[in-house]
């Protein structure tokens, strides 16, 4: 199945990638995706334990089972507005 991946802000700059599509096996989890991302973008490996994911605009944890055509975003720490 195909998963759409989106990178933003800090992660977009590190990966030099805004959008990409990753081919994954049925029943793959966010945990699996996380490992695939590190394999494809090794300079993200040191941030791995900070990864936060959203699937189809909703935060999801590592056990979440992905579906074909899901839009997954790697979400940097949020800092909207001013303090």
């Amino acid at each position: 199945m195909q998963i759409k991946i989106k990178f933003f802000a800090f992660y977009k700059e590190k990966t030099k990638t805004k959008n990409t599509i990753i081919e994954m096996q049925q029943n793959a989890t966010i945990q699996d995706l996380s490992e695939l991302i590190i394999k494809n973008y090794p300079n993200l490996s040191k941030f791995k334990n900070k990864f936060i994911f959203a699937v189809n605009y909703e935060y999801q944890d590592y056990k979440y089972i992905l579906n074909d055509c899901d839009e997954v975003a790697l979400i940097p720490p949020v800092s909207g507005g001013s303090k």
Partner: protein
Amino acid sequence: MIKITFDKLNPELITNSIKNPNNGAVITFLGTTRNYTENRKVLHLEYEAYAPMAEKKLNEIIKYIQKKWDINDIYIAHRLGKVEIGEISLVVSISSPHRKSAFIACEYVIDTLKLTVPIWKKEFFQDESKWVNEPKF
């Protein structure tokens, strides 16, 4: 009402659009770009959003405060792109018959927005630029 936009924010239009003769209190919060952060001179800021998710999260916040504090009239606007010093990056405007609940709801919106809504801020200094809350290892 939610607006995530690269255009300059107009707090007068926003406040006027939620003023309502049924309501006695209007509270408007403006987040503006500061010239210094931790004693370092800031040249300008840049905001980036995951816009459709940000809108979904802001809609959830609005639904929550409408239910919890019985507030109908609320407008949240966030600026994206390059924002100069002194310009407005965030407007939250709430009108309510009850002043107390409007204050509580307004603070709740801002606090929650800063925790859950996917919008990121980059600070540009003389010698470097940095995303606020950049992951460290």
